[in-house]
């Protein structure tokens, strides 16, 4: 890549930051495969969308790869048993989430045999209909492995409505500390490219471009060698800058085109998949293997043996750390336990949280890596660093000031909805204002408000329906009453009996009505 080309690509989006990447030595350590632990905790929602529904019962025996959760609704993903064993419990487990709230999940006690269930293999995936590939991917419960965990089948075939002519493979891995994609490309380059070829076939795109940041020369070399035979797949080296791995920014750098706000990449004929997802798709289509394990980077100054590990889904973070030699207490000991990278990852309060499909890293950072230092507590001095760091072109300081004052709507007018929560602003803030928390809070507040409005809407409809029903019933009763009264009056008149009987009938009818009302 020429210097000019490099410069032009860098200039395509303003903002972004260059954090210390901390990728080595973890990225250079060989890939390890972790055997299934004694107990696995598999949440029923590991993806964006509706939770899956458990289709096994406590006490059932399951085999590895057996479906245990059925997708619900249009955007959802199936859940599979990560190893063979017995279903121990179906209930609440601690979610891998900073809130520490429970999530519904299935606990499996491993029988130690780790035997697969019957798998549907396919020797020539390119002979398959794209829709069939989509179905197989959906059946395998594959979700985007870059972190967002969006069900992949929706993006692979159909579902998007628009024609896709470019498939972009996101292998930029711009988050510091994480190297699972790097390692995957170094060790399984041929498999990745095979997966990309299958995706290319399924999406109907004309070409695929693999975007890799230039701080991963080994991965670039491995992938270049692997794509040698594929005319429609290209490896593109892109400058290292956070957040290069953001979908919209990667598209911008690779194609020069912007995804419209409030829109999706498919609006401009592009679809983006993570390189890890490509391998998962290959496994699903060629071997029928569902997504039951993933590559996880275990890193941070407090980890004894940092590196990349293939971990069964549902393994507790503490057990993965134990597999990596446990924690060390130097440098003041562990300061934060993170799932994901340091820029967007989640801090969790306990080691007892399971690895799920979207967990790309387990990091145990010390205070120095977190950057805890002096300066805490200063107010905003309007230096504008956040504005210059923002890769989307927002004014984080203005948005945060409005959220702080409780003016969430005013914040929304400053483009809150366009915030990708990359964390660049808070990373550079000299006053260390938790800007991202302000944005998360405001977005949550707006969402809660929208839910409230929706709720009020429903309740209003229900109230009207009931009021109308009550009114109708009363009217019908009154009519019935009148009919009966008239009938009995007529009968009385016909029989020339005293009117008292008719009155009695009216009374009876009204009593009855009173009871029913």
């Amino acid at each position, binding site marked *: 890549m020429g210097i000019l080309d490099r410069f032009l690509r860098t200039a395509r989006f303003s903002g972004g930051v260059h954090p210390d990447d901390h990728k080595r030595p973890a990225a250079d350590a060989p890939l390890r495969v972790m055997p299934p632990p004694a107990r696995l905790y598999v949440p029923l929602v590991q993806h964006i969308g509706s939770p899956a529904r458990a289709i096994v019962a406590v006490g059932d025996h399951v085999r590895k790869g057996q479906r245990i959760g059925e997708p619900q609704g249009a955007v959802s993903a199936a859940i599979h048993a990560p190893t063979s064993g017995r279903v121990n419990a179906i209930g609440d487990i601690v979610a891998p989430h900073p809130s520490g709230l429970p999530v519904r999940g299935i606990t499996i006690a491993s029988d130690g045999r780790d035997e697969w269930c019957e798998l549907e293999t396919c020797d020539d995936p390119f002979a398959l209909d794209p829709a069939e590939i989509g179905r197989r991917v959906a059946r395998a419960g594959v979700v985007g492995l870059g972190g967002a965990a969006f069900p992949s089948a929706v993006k692979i075939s159909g579902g998007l409505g628009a024609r896709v002519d470019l498939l972009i493979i996101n292998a930029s891995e711009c988050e510091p500390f994480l190297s699972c994609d790097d390692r995957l490309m170094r060790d399984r380059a041929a498999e990745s490219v095979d997966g990309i070829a299958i995706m290319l076939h399924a999406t109907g795109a004309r070409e695929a471009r693999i975007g890799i940041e230039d701080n991963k020369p080994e991965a670039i070399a491995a992938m270049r060698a692997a794509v040698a035979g594929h005319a429609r797949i290209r490896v593109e080296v892109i400058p290292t800058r956070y957040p290069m791995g953001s979908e919209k920014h990667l598209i911008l750098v690779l194609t020069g085109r912007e995804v419209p706000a409030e829109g999706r990449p498919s609006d401009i004929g592009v679809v983006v998949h993570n390189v890890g997802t490509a391998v998962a798709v290959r496994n699903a289509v060629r071997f029928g293997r569902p997504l039951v394990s993933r590559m996880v980077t275990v890193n941070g100054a407090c980890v004894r043996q940092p590196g990349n590990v293939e971990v069964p889904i549902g393994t507790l973070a503490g057990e993965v750390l134990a597999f990596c030699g446990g924690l060390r207490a130097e440098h003041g000991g562990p300061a934060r336990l993170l799932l994901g990278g340091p820029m967007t990852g989640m801090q969790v309060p306990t080691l007892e949280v399971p690895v799920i499909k979207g967990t790309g890293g387990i990091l145990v950072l010390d205070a120095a890596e977190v950057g805890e230092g002096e300066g805490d507590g200063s*107010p905003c001095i309007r230096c504008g660093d956040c504005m210059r760091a923002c890769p989307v072109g927002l004014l984080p300081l203005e948005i945060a000031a409005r959220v702080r*004052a409780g003016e969430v709507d005013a914040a929304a007018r400053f483009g809150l909805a366009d915030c990708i929560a990359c964390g660049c602003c808070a990373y550079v803030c000299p006053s260390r204002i938790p800007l991202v928390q302000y944005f998360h809070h405001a977005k949550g507040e707006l969402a809660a408000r929208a839910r409230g409005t929706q709720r009020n809407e429903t309740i209003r409809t229900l109230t009207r329906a009931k009021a109308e029903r009550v009114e109708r019933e009363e009217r019908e009763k009154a009519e019935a009453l009148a009919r009966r009264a008239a009938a009995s009056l007529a009968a009385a008149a016909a029989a020339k009996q005293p009117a008292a009987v008719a009155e009695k009938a009216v009374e009876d009818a009204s009593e009855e009505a009173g009871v029913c009302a």
Partner: protein
Amino acid sequence: MNEYLLLLLSTALINNVVLVKFLGLCPTMGVSKSVDAALGMGLATTFVITLAAAASWMLEHWLLAPFDLGFLRILSFILVIAAAVQFTEMAIRKTSPALYESLGIYLPLITTNCAVLGVALLNVQQGYGFVKSVLFGFGSALGFTIVLLIFAGLRERLALASVPAAFSGAPAAFITISLLSLAFMGFSGLIPA
């Protein structure tokens, strides 16, 4: 031409109606919480002041002076101003209900905006001709609008600041406008009177 331009500049900035003559402080403090409302108020007041300047000139020269009715000046001017304000209010209510609601009570209160009467009376005092009177009125109103806009911008930011409880609200606003007035003193002497 140059003379008219200087008159406009001088009334708008150098002898600013709010910051130098201290007229029209009530709406300046009242309708400066948001820039949008301030702009609406500024435009409405501009319309009224310009109209009142023209009308008061005609009143003065065609009615009050010929019939020697100088003692009715304030009374009749207020009558004209009130009518102009009423007209503006109806027009705004029809054309922009949102602006009408955001201006609230301050819209009819343009009547008692001393800047309006002040400009009309100053016009008579200065003995300007018709065109100059209108320009004087328009320039003053322009100055009023500029200050209102700047001040509203400042107050929008002030609303986000963590002002100590003792100063929050009107005190901080008054200090701010006094500092703004201080800044406008830089214009003094720009055009020899």
